[in-house]
């Protein structure tokens, strides 16, 4: 594996900026795009749910929705939603090109020290082709399993200290960052290199949550948890 560059959108969750969505010029529908669409949709659901389950925000701002045929929680705070959407919007091109290795939701305490890292490790099968036999419903089943795991992950995790914030990191493959600097998907919403302290946690414990393997995508979700959170 080549060097891994770490990038993050370091926006503290409590301070939202409003960003206009730039229109993406859609290329022809290709494989990467399909995967990216599916995955980003999933990540959006997952991030909302993680924020809910891990008590990053008061549960009052969440609403119950149905996705993948299971109940999920979704924030109804417009700025938060926008932030998540913008973030994923920027992640999407990376996934399309299979350049994103991990998408990490880092939950940090008041001092901005990470206490938990939800790591979505993504790999796309090297040689594949989508046919209409590749059923979306199958992928959805797998994604649903992950969602369900997230919703019960508080059972295996310790409680977070109050006043947590979150950020999203993307571990890219190879030299993807170079291109990212050139092309800003959303104006004024650039990627920056993550601080070392956000990336690494001392005495972290790893809790695998779920692994899925499908024709189009292989993904595993695990949580790295700080041993002493307080």
């Amino acid at each position, binding site marked *: 594996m080549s060097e891994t560059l770490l990038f993050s959108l370091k926006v503290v969750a409590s301070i939202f900026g409003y960003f206009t969505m730039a229109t993406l010029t859609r290329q022809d529908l*290709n494989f990467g795009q399909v995967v990216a669409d599916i995955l980003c949709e999933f990540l959006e659901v997952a991030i909302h749910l993680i924020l809910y389950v891990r008590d990053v925000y008061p549960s009052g701002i969440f609403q119950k929705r149905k996705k993948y045929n299971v109940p999920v929680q979704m924030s109804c705070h417009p700025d938060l939603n926008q932030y998540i959407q913008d973030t994923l919007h920027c992640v999407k091109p990376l996934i399309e090109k299979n350049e994103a290795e991990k998408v990490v939701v880092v939950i940090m305490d008041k001092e901005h020290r990470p206490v938990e890292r939800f790591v979505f*490790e993504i790999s796309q099968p090297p040689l594949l*082709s989508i046919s*209409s036999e590749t059923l979306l419903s199958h992928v959805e089943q797998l994604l649903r399993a992950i969602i369900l795991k997230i919703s019960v992950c508080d059972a295996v995790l310790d409680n977070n200290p109050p006043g947590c914030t979150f950020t999203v990191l993307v571990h890219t493959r190879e030299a993807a960052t170079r291109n990212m600097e050139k092309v800003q998907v959303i104006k004024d919403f650039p990627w920056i290199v993550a601080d070392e302290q956000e990336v690494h946690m001392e005495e972290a*414990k790893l809790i695998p949550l779920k692994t899925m393997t499908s024709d189009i995508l292989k993904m*595993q979700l695990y949580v*790295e948890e700080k041993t002493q959170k307080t």
Partner: protein
Amino acid sequence: MSRDGWRKKASEDDGWGGRGGYMAAKISKLEEQFQKDAPREKQKDGMSSCIFSGVAIYVNGYTDPSADELRRLMMLHGGQFHLYYTRSKTTHIIATNLPNRKIQELKGEKVVRPEWITDSIKAGRQLSYVPYQLYTKQKGLNFTSVCARGKQDPSSSHEPSKPDLNHPESDSIKPQPSHTQTLSKEVLKSTHANHKANFTERSKHQGSQDTLLTNGYVHPVNGALKPQDSFAELQLHVVDTGSHQSHLPQTESRDREESSCSSAGSKANSHQRSLISTASPAKQPGLHNMQKDLHPKPTFKPGTSAAPQKGNLHDQKRVRLNGSYHMTPNSSTLADSSNQPGRSGQGAEAGIISEFFSHSRLHHISTWRNEFSEYVNSLQSRSRAAGGAVFSGKEKLKKLKANCSSGVRQSCILHVDMDCFFVSVGIRHRPDLKGKPVAVTSNRGPGRVAQRPGANPQLEFQYYQRKQNQYRKVPSNGVDLDLAALSMAEIASCSYEARQADVRNGMFFGRAKQLCPDLQSVPYDFQAYKEVALSMYETLASYTHNIEALSCDEALVDATKLLVELGVTPDDLARAIREDIKEKTGCSASVGMSSNILLARMATRKAKPNGQYFLRSEEVDDFIRDQPVSSLPGVGRSMSSKLTSLGVSTCGDLQQLSISRLQREFGPRTGQTLFRFCRGLDDRPVRSEKERKSVSAEMNYNIRFTQVEEAESFLTNLSMEVQKRMEGAGLRGRRITLKVMMRKPGAPVEPAKYGGHGICDNFARSVLLAQPTDSGQLIAAEAIKLFYAMKLDVKDMRGVGLQVQQLEGSYADPSGQGPSRGRSIKDLLLAKQPAHSPRKDPLAQGQSSVNRTEFFKSTFSSNQERVTPPSSPPSTSSDPMPGTSKGGLHHPHTPNHVRTYLNVSIEVPSPSQVDQSVLEALPVDIRKQVEQSWRHREEQPSTSSHLSTPPRTSSSLPPGPSLGTLVLQLPDQPGQPCTTGIILELPDFSQVDPEVFAALPRELQEELCSAYRNKGNAQAHAQAQGSAVEQKNPFPQLKQPAVGKLKRRYKKRNASPAKKGPSPLKKLFPGNSPAKSSPSKTLPLPLKHRLIHFKYIGCPSSPSIDVPETLSKLNPRPVPTLAGAYEFSDIRTLLREWVTTISEPMEEDILQVVKYCTELVEDKDLEKLYLVIKYMKRLMQQSSESVWSMAFDFVLDNVQVVVQQTYGSTLKIT
């Protein structure tokens, strides 16, 4: 008229109902049941008749008599009862009371009170339903009651006043009814004479079963009412009268009845050749009904009692008949048939595709457009190269018009279109045909064709008709019932004189001949088309090079600059061009001129024939307002019908709609286009070159497969055709689409047109490849996969097409500028088969293959020193049963799935892992080498981590040395002799896949060949040794006493992958030295072999791979397994067994578990790892033996190290 009754049935019950799946199956089952019950009912109840033949009722709501009773009545009287309402099949709805909502729904249907049925039965005939209509507002009179001809029933005089959906053909038939009626008697007589002769002839064939015979006669009538001549209609009539008269004893005498019925049958019989239907009765309920109607006639079979049985016999006979009729010659009148291979080989022959495309001249014409585009391109590039072109025509015009100038500044597009291109070319040397109606068609005969077995044109006609009715259009290609026997050759083009007689392009020739008896047919003359088209383009090119080729006879010219330069009016230019063309080709052309492409094309329509029209911009508004929407490009049948439903018929109407409305209705793009087009706005430029969107090859003529293999090979051939075309265009594509036309269920097996596809359902499926390709083999592989995924019955395939989209220029294109630029169009045109000039791009092909071989070379050469060529393990058998492999050292058989594991190298395991006995079993030289490699290893101090890991390229090799061959990998030892290769064992030569072999690099092939030569001795040698060793290692010597345990152990161990260098285990386990005698030594020999064998199966790539990343990407890493177990449940079982049955875990086993866990980490399957660990924790810590606890700690420690290395943190084990 009775005719209507027949047709009604055929059209209503012909099984075209658009429901699929369950409901369709259920309905057909119900129908079957109904038909099975019917004869029983009839038997029970003495009085039965056929008065309701052709009537299918659906009972809605409460009725008196009840629905059940009505069902029984329908059974008795030859009708149909539908439990489910089908608009297409159900003829009458029976109800006494309907809610308003339902009435709305059933508008236009025949809703009749139940009294109609009871009264009809009372009257002994089918009464007109009109007086019984439930609601008088209903649209009536669609259906003229079935009643006897000659009987003066008032309702019989109802001629269809409004053409109904079901029988729109009635209009075309109407003009001749008197003719039919007068003739019918004659026919009856004449056919009656025939009857006898046929009868005797038949009886020879069939033995002496009378009933059978009658069945036989009846059948063809139903199957395909298909006379060979203009008696088509007549015949119909005869049959109908025959069948219906018999219900009416009072009208005709018995004798007469019989004769008419049987003569109808025999008449049909005399036309056997054309009258047999191969469709099964279940698929053609309509026909089946008809048979049913005829069967119970007392005059026909006096002793009618076992109808079902008869039906069976009948079917059998039909099969036989079909068999024999297949041999009848049927292509005599078809012009094209001589080109085609015999029926038996249809669609299946190897070269058929190339042949088809090289013979399909229409296909050529369609490819010409590309060629002309290229021609224009080449002209342009040539003129660029020459630093300016000489436009002879332009110069001429310049001279002529030197004096006058009109100063047209506006852009001006000329649309040049030849007038009835095919016709005018066809008759340019035949002045005698000028001014006469002429059609170009492949049919040269009188316009009549013999009917072929299995064909049922009526059904097809009705289908097409109904389809057309969907669009509320007059049937335009003249498809009509009475055309049954007429030529099905389509008219490619017809002259204006013929068009005046309502002959249209695309019409079947037979029909056209009816409309216009003087119609002359002209054969295709492809050479001439080519010449004329070329000279037309040359003419245009003599004026300007801004030409867009639309087709062989149509081009767009951007004359803006030209006009400014010359200072002439567009009209002058057009006239000059037309004169030029006329002079050079002898054919006339029409020119439309306007400010953009759209208007120019519309102007051409006005200019035709042989004229020109300049649509000035100030006239545009008025002009376009009156144009029908269908004249806009992109507005086809479906869109125009949609527009009609919006109340739009002309562009003026369309202008009334807002853009948002249009976009809502048709989507954003189409909506906008429509909005602009209907205002005459069009900003498309005249493009001399159009980008190609797809490359495809399709064939829907003469496709008749009998076996899947045929279809497969056909797909392969078609792929090759696509490859040829892609190579020709220098393109590669990523998306492969397979289109298949399948015979529509219920459609006749043999379509009306010889070799045609008939009525079909279209299916398409596509796949996206990771890389663009132009390789026919790759395309074929994908296509075949798609084909299987579609799960189709090959017998019903009627057309196959392959399309490749998402094109990219092939990088191997020599010029690097994409689609065959530099080619001269002239070469193409003059070549006999332009589309298939085998212009292989040597570079394009060469490069990729060179690349591949180079790759092989490089990988192999880099390994040459250490990687030996493929050889097999002592036993390639992957059979886990110990018994089977005993003594099976050199099983020549290679189990199938071994093939799937393509990577076949293992490194030399550390000595502790190799059983001495195995070693002994090896040929001497190999053994020496292995030992030497150990020695070498021991010499090096840093053994543990790197020694046993020479660059392991082979695990990521492409499917090269497959077949379960095993490569013994040795560390690089410069001084060692015989490094080129150690061939352990080879699979039996017969097992070698020739393809794989061919894919191997040359040196490998040679090596293998020589290896095979030597194989014999070596094998014998090894075998002898092997058996000797086995005797030396008898079972009782085993450390493990229990056989069961042994088995399990063996299972566990043999499946475990090879030891890897950087594993932390070695460090932690210093005792793992070669000197230490391992317990595994005592394992019986076969098991040991298996150990080796499985090792390579489960072997994942280790991190020390030094292969290019791309290669390792191509090879999916093998799934980690523990003792062959992959599923978590299996692994759990295995672990439980291990922990519960053994008191003291073997060190080796523990290592295997660790190995497995490590692989899980590498495979990024933390979840499974977590589950395994947690499960082991529970198991082992529960165990009474503290050894197990320690074992778990050991495993966990190791796993944590690996996890820590990979993820930077350790697992949280609670």
